[in-house]
């Protein structure tokens, strides 16, 4: 049940490394839905997501209101993508 100190140290370090160096996600290209104007948060959608869910309809005026109310307008870019099922972890 109990590991030796060396194994304990290795597993702990390994988990810490995995936790702090999460695999970086690479996405090919992003597309911007229509209707964006200067001063509003940009919404970029990954090609994989468009293939899966279609190109979203974004109400930029309403979204800008939301972001201003919650984050005082500090949000500049929202990147929407989807993690491949193989990399998805539950729990």
């Amino acid at each position, binding site marked *: *049940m*109990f*590991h030796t100190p060396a194994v*304990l140290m290795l*597993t*702990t370090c*390994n*988990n*810490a490394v995995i*936790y702090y160096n999460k695999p970086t996600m690479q996405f090919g290209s992003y597309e911007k839905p229509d209707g964006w104007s200067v001063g509003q948060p940009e*919404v970029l*959608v990954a090609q994989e*997501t468009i293939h*899966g*869910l*279609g*190109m*979203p*309809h*974004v*109400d930029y005026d*309403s*979204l800008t*209101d*939301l*972001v201003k*109310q*919650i*984050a*005082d307008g*500090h*949000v500049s*870019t*929202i*990147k*929407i*993508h*989807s*993690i491949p099922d193989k990399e*998805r972890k539950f729990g």
Partner: protein
Amino acid sequence: MHVDAIASENYLSDGEGTVTVIAHEAQHIGDFGKHPFRSTLETLSADILYAGRVASKAAFPKLPAVGPRYEYDPFEKRAYAREADLIVAQHAQDILFPQSARTRRLLVSRQLTLTTLQILDLDAYDKMASDYVKPKNGFTRLFS
């Protein structure tokens, strides 16, 4: 800000989907903007405690993990509370994917307008629109 659309649109389809996640992350950004020192301290302490939890679970896999869960951190608690805020519910239709489970639910519960359905290329379901008016036939027009 990064949002996983598949997870947020399908697994959070009872809520506001992508907008829920945007509100959650925007709360973090807002916290860092208003209270940078306090937010950094909270995040660091939560990271250290969570690393301890992961380490304890790795060391003793058959025992319950020691340390708080990540979502019990006050920094995360505020963001989870924001997800359930009425403001977020009012902005539920800010981002709509035409083929997502959440859009289907909104469609079936007649919460989308005709204009929105046309933008999403879902014209075929125009009878499910919230502002759909059934055209009158000759007989009803006679008595109206």
